[in-house]
């Protein structure tokens, strides 16, 4: 869901609450600042317009008549957005696993290459296992797959402790792999014309 949703809805609710108070005062025949009420009304109308725009952006064919229908619609949109986000997470994990499979480890010592390949295989398995988990997978920090190893090999403590911690918590094998991998030890096979 877009980040505009909460603020838009909150703004609408706040202005409507103020308007409600003013209306109650009018109902009690008490004096109100009509200009202020009108200003609040305009703000509420603006918030409603934004909300409508957001809904129609998700569901261009959506229509509703009242708040209840709006709430149902909002809930539906929210589920849709959540499913889309999980799928995106899984795709990202699988993309990184494929990227790890595609690359080669280069080192002057074979034993070191062998160790790093084992770590790579464990990370690939871990990523694929996470992507196969039912429900929302662990969020993977960092950029897309093709840039991910370079980004991860550059993480330093304590500067990137948060991202490192996230990797470590969700993807322990992946974290161990990138901790042993130096940026110049990773070579990605490029498609060469035969």
């Amino acid at each position, binding site marked *: 869901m877009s980040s505009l949703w909460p603020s838009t809805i909150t703004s*609408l*609710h706040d*202005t*409507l609450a103020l*308007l*409600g108070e003013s*209306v*109650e*005062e*009018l*109902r*009690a*025949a*008490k*004096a*109100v600042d*009509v200009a202020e*009420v*009108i200003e609040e*009304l*305009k703000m*509420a*109308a603006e*918030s*409603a*317009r934004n*909300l*409508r725009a957001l*809904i129609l952006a998700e569901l261009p064919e959506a229509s*509703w*008549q*009242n*708040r209840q*229908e*709006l709430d149902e619609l909002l809930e539906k949109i929210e589920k849709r957005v959540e499913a889309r986000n999980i799928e995106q997470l899984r795709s990202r994990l699988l993309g990184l696993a494929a990227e790890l499979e595609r690359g080669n480890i280069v080192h002057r010592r074979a034993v070191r290459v062998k160790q790093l390949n084992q770590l790579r295989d464990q990370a690939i398995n871990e990523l694929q296992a996470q992507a196969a988990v039912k429900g929302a997978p662990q969020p993977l920090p960092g950029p897309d797959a093709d840039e991910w190893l370079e980004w991860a090999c550059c993480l330093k403590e304590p500067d990137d402790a948060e991202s490192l911690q996230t990797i470590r918590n969700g993807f322990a094998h992946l974290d161990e792999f990138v901790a042993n991998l130096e940026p110049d030890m990773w070579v990605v096979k490029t498609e060469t014309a035969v």
Partner: protein
Amino acid sequence: MNSFWPPALASLDDSLTLSCESLGKLNAGLSIDIAEVIEQLNLAAESARTVRELVLSELPEASWQNREELDALIEEIRKTVEARNLEQRRSRLLALATELERGSIVHRRALRVNELNQLRDQAINELRSQAGSGGAAQPLPGPEADQWVAWACALKEPEDSESLQALRNGFAQLDDFVANLEPGMWTVPDPSIQQQAELEALIQEETQKNLRSRLLALATELERGSIVHHRAFRVTQLNQLREEAINELRSQVEGTGAPPTLPGPEADQWVGWACGLTEPEDAESLQTLRKGFAHLDDFVANLEPDMWIAAGLPTPETPSEAESSADNTHQEPSPPETHPEPSWPETHQEPSRAETNGFEETMVSSGPIPIKLKARKSSKWRRVPQVSHSLDEPSHSAIESDTLTADYVTPAPTEEEVQGTPAQKGALLNSIKGLVTDPVRRLKHAVEPPVTAEVFREASAEAAIPDHRVESVFTAETFHETSDAPTTTSEIRTRVQELFEGKSRMLLAVAAVLVLIVVGAIMWRSHRNHIRSASVSASERKIPDLTQSNPQNQVQDQPLTATDPNAKLPADKQAKPKDQNATAKPATPGAPETQAGKPNNAVLQPPLTVAKNEARKEEATPVEAVEVPVLGLSNKAPSSVISSIPTAQPKLAQKVQVSSGVAQGLLVHQVTPSYPTQARQAHVQGTVVLQALIGKDGSVRNLHALSGPPMLTQAALDAVKQWRYKPYYLDGQPVEAETQINVKFNP
């Protein structure tokens, strides 16, 4: 929803409902018409303000926080208003009942009147029972009570069936009454007319009071005045007439009804005025007098102007000691002349004609205390010093000489009485002495006393009469005797004496008598009629004098005839042609030196006028000492009865209370009050009663509300303060008028 004030609350709730619907749409993220919602919010705010004002108008101290508290307050107000409406309804019924009681039924048949009166009584009872019932009184359709009967009589079926049905259902007896009543059969007295009648009654009462005061003043004036005539019998007759007139005046004053109007001036000038009335010129005044005051009319008809000496006027003079001594050598000796200061008992010891030589008639006078004999030289009514002189007090003049000349009437002031003006006194007494003792005059009067008396009176008038030639001889002498030429007078007298002592004395006397008879008769006839007019004109000129109780004013007035050279000039011219030489005569040696105080005055005065005015001067002091009131009346010139009313109404002229009806009649500029929008929306109506003061210029002042719906009060005040009225006049003068103004508001 509260059923009370449905329009205002409904408007508020409606506006809020629409606004809430719009807010609900916004809450659902739906689009709304912002302009419409803003309009609804404005309407809601306006309605809320109306409701607030409604609540605060009924309960100014009210406060609330929410709708529940507002509803509770409205419920409380509703009960109060309902109670008030109920009371108003009852008041309306009672007012109509009162209105029905006030009105009268007019019909050509008494039976019909009785029937309608019965119906009216039943309707009144019905209205009162409805008003007195414990529950809610039936609403009475129609306008206010003062217009209700006319409205009800104009109801028709089927056009007004609703009102008729309401009337029939709630007030069957009243409906029965108005069904039988025709509009022309109902009359209601106008309250403004009643108030006007009260005002007129008040004015009439003041008028009567003033009139009574006037009658009393005249009665007192008649009592205090003196009647002078040379016949005692005539004096007695006139006294009787006077008594009857006085009794008549007093009985009119004591009468229960309004006394008849007395024409003429104030009391101190009235007799002079009345004696001057002539027919047919003054027929109207005479007729009024005759109708209202028969005895008074009888009295003044018998009274000649010169027979009346008003109270407070100077009395004629008596010879003074100085003149007595100066003329001793020319006169027949008489005991009083030798008396240095003659006293009243002495001067009145020979009052009657029988006691004179048969030619000279004494003037019999009747004053406040029986009949008096007084020396008199003037025919004018004059104020008599408040000194009692009874008839049995002999005149000094009478004793002094058996050649008593005609106008010896008023008690001559003694030396003590005239001490205030010794110079005038001396001159005056000298002149009198000369008159009394001069043989020429004595002879003249002896031959024709009536003519002489008449001429004497004429000559004594203020306006000198040119034809008084006979008098001019001795008057010129008198004039100079009173002046500073005593020596010349003495010489003349010596020559005259010698003349009479000679052989031709008798011949000359006879010739002189014949001449005097002829001239006197001519003059008497020619001026017989002129006497009255002269007296009247003189009285008119004397009006300001007579009204002046202050001696200063009397003295100031004297210059017109005595001390003012300009004023004396015409009279002087009249006197001079008759005796040019006489004017050059030296003053009488016996003239007292005390005359030096005002010698010129005497010299320049025409003879008899001098005598009269000097006499006035002399008597001014006693008048001042006695402080004769002018009957408590105004010192102003004579005024009519009506014109004298305002003097008794100073309180009325300050501020009067007038009814709203009268004020309505005076309204010249009316500004219609604007109906307040809120009051109109709230269907607030009623009458605002204002209290206002209509200024002398017709402007509205001191305006304030007495009652009425608070929401309408300001509008009524704003409008009425712009109204303009014609000034309310009371007795010809604009006065401030306080009134109530009812401003009705019907949406």
